[in-house]
């Protein structure tokens, strides 16, 4: 070994390793690690890369199903739809986006796209569930903070637009939610869907000693040394700017070349194994792909193209420079692979060989600078962190809420709330059409996409409710799964698989770990109940600033299969159609948007019956398959008030509805009881719909009739559609306009 290991004993703490972890490294190596080795373990064993706090919980998730080809543990999960492999995965890029929103969002998209690419799949769609602190329109927030929040929204949306549009992958959905808990820590989650012929699925496996290891894409610089991993593995502290690794800058152009070159290499049949370079860079990609195949690897650092002079071995090994992939080919195919990359104008270098040693041996100019068992890097510690239910009693469900002074004003307040209003301002900045596969784009309950190579279509959505999870992480997470499934059902899609991004606070806090464990339990139970195996996901801990943790925010990404008939759409379609509610409205305003917006109170959440939710899904999909419905829309945040508003606006038609007997009007209108769908039907189809629903025990209630140019709620409110449209469409652009 080249380096004297004497000085490193206290270095491990600087690198974020505990004394126990350091001792284990010594035990693995049978000696003291040198600096490069220590750096490698420190990134690979970071929370972000090793899942050391979450592993024991994630294992409990249901991950099997007839459609699942590849479950958790790979770059992405894969399900089979109509003979085609559909890859799905979601990732967080919260911390980098807070530091530099444009580049943080850009590199987030880049990373998730390469995860999909590493499965041999062509990325065909992106979704971006986003959460920020309140905008300046809300008087409850300090102006400087609100201004910063707006800057973050602007930057993140620009980043996603810049990167996604350039690489030619449509961004077809996402979420934008505002809540004070995200002011110091926005959530930027990104989800990607890809497709491949089933026989072309690739894995990160460095099989075949003697095979050649190629590094494709951008040059390696000092950017993000320990970047994402270190950033995402501890909380923000004031004044820690100087310790931050330099920010990574996205290069969507190179990513586009990387996509095309990698897919061409796979099509040419020269790829033995392929792995993306994300967190922990070369160190992670080489050790993982060797360990997965039970082989070893010898790497020659002098062959790694660099952007900067004078880089140390540990820097080259752990740099998180963007837009790079690792590809394993046979020596016979080496020239063809290099020629293909040249043709695309993409950098490619031979940086090493696969060996049979089981070790990752790293050389620089012939000198060995690191030599560790390849599998040991990925085989990090496992923690059973303390778990404790917080002491304060969970908020009491609030069913006894006063009616608003003015119902009309209340409806408009909801329609114009930044979290509930139209997100057109955001998604019009995204190319959501490229690839000509977007049958239903952003703005609907779920996006519906054509599947290249298949006759069936798929639908995708991403959902979460942090406030409900703060009230009850178990039930709140179940709600997220239920809502995702409902969003798919209303576009006629049968849910088949889930991916998830679990955004939480500091795992070293027992209350955070308790919420996490409850959330995972809810995720598992709900996915089991709704028949949607979890094919993978991502955990983002340490989402806190200055000791203030975000609400637990598990984001559920779900994919479904659309059988045949075109989806009916959100909008009312014809005057005289009957408006019906499938499901039952309970008197529960706890946790509702009405409570938050009109009464400025938080707390609680609605009840949930997963069996009823499953039955509702079957009814809605059955009705759509039989073409019984003219429109269908998920009724959730904002209750019937918002669902009616959106169906009126999407169809450009008014509606007259009569409040239900037995419930106060505001409770009926604003309750957010789960398991409900707002639909419209032509009168002669109602009996068939009723029969279908009765067979599943789902109640169907008649609400009123489509028609006119206003939303009429009994004799209580009469709001012109034009007024609703103005409020709903302009709220976000107005909030984003500079003063």
């Amino acid at each position, binding site marked *: 070994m080249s380096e004297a290991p004497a000085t490193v004993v206290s270095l491990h703490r600087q690198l974020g390793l505990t004394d126990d972890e350091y001792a284990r490294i010594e035990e693995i190596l049978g000696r003291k690690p040198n600096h490069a080795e220590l750096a490698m373990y420190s990134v690979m064993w970071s929370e972000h890369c090793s899942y050391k706090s979450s592993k024991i919980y994630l294992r409990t998730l249901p991950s099997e199903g007839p459609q699942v080809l590849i479950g958790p543990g790979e770059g992405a999960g894969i399900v089979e739809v109509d003979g085609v492999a559909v890859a799905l995965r979601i990732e967080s890029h919260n911390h980098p986006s807070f*530091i*530099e929103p444009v*580049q943080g969002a850009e590199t987030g998209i880049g990373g998730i796209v390469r995860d999909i690419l590493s499965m041999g799949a062509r990325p065909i769609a992106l979704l971006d569930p986003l959460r920020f602190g309140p905008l300046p329109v809300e008087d409850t927030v300090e102006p400087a903070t609100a201004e910063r929040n707006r800057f973050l929204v602007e930057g993140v949306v620009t980043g996603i637009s810049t990167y996604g549009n350039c690489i030619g992958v449509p961004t077809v959905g996402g979420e934008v939610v505002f809540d004070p808990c995200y002011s110091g820590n926005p959530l930027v989650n990104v989800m990607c869907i890809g497709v491949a012929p089933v026989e072309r699925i690739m894995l990160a496996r460095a099989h075949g000693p003697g095979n050649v290891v190629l590094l494709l894409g*951008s040059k390696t*610089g*000092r*950017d993000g040394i320990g970047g994402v991993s270190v950033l995402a593995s501890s909380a923000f502290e004031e004044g820690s700017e100087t310790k931050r690794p*330099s*920010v*990574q*800058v*996205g*290069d969507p*152009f*190179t990513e586009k070349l990387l996509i095309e070159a990698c897919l061409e290499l796979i099509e040419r049949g020269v790829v033995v194994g392929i792995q993306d370079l994300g967190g922990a860079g070369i160190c992670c990609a080489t050790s993982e792909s060797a360990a997965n195949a039970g082989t070893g690897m010898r790497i020659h650092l002098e062959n790694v193209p660099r*952007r*900067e002079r004078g880089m140390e071995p540990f820097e080259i090994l752990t740099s998180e*420079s*963007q837009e790079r992939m690792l590809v394993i080919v046979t020596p016979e195919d080496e020239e063809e692979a290099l020629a293909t990359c040249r043709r695309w*104008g993409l950098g490619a270098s031979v940086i090493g060989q696969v060996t049979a040693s089981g070790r990752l041996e790293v050389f620089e100019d012939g000198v060995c600078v690191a030599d560790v068992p390849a599998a040991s890097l990925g085989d990090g510690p496992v923690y059973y962190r303390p778990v404790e239910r917080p002491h304060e009693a969970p908020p009491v469900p609030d069913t006894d809420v006063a009616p608003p002074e003015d119902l009309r004003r209340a409806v408009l307040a909801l329609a114009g709330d930044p979290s509930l209003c139209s997100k057109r301002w955001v998604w019009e900045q995204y190319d959501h059409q490229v690839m000509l596969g977007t049958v239903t784009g952003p703005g609907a309950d779920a996006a519906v996409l054509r599947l290249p190579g298949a006759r069936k279509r798929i639908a995708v959505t991403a959902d979460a409710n942090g406030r409900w999870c703060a009230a009850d992480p178990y039930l709140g997470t179940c709600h997220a799964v239920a809502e995702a499934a409902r969003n798919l059902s209303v576009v006629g899609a049968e849910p088949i698989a889930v991916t998830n991004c679990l955004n939480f606070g500091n795992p070293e806090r027992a209350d955070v770990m308790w919420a996490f464990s409850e959330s995972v339990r809810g995720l598992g139970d709900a996915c089991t109940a709704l028949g949607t195996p979890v094919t993978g996901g991502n955990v983002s801990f340490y989402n806190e600033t200055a000791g203030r943790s975000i609400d637990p925010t598990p984001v559920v990404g779900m994919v479904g299969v659309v059988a045949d008939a075109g989806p009916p759409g959100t909008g009312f379609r014809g005057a005289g159609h009957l408006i019906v509610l499938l499901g039952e409205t309970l008197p529960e305003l706890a946790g509702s948007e009405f409570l938050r917006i009109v009464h400025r109170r938080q707390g609680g959440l609605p009840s949930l019956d997963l069996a009823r939710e499953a039955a509702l899904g079957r009814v809605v999909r059955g009705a759509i398959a039989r073409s019984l419905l003219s429109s269908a829309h998920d009724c959730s945040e904002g209750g019937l008030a918002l669902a009616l508003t959106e169906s009126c606006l999407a169809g450009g038609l008014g509606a007259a509805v009569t409040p239900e007997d037995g419930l106060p009007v505001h409770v009926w209108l604003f309750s957010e009881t789960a398991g409900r769908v707002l639909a419209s039907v032509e009168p002669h189809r109602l009996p068939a719909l009723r029969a279908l629903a009765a067979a599943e025990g789902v109640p169907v209630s008649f609400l009123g009739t489509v028609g006119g140019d206003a939303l009429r709620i009994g004799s209580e409110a009469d709001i012109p559609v034009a007024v609703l449209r103005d409020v709903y469409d302009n709220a976000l652009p107005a909030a984003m306009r500079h003063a």
Partner: protein
Amino acid sequence: MELVRFAVAVDVMPKDGISDPQGQTIERALPSLGFADVHDVRVGKRIELAVEAPDAETAEAIVRAACVRFLANPVIEEFQVHVLERAGGPA
């Protein structure tokens, strides 16, 4: 206090060590256009503006403050401010 109008230029460049994909792509394109001897291309912004201030020092200070707060992104960019001249008479 009489205000004078100064023309000021701000050069905003990517910080050292921050990758500059745009510069790299331009650099790769140049040889095929017959410019083989051009290297190390970096692309930034140039902002020209007029500012009213009692003197050049104040003008510079005002623009520096605007850079820190708004015109440059200190996370990835560095900037230089040049007060060019008195532009025209008093404002």
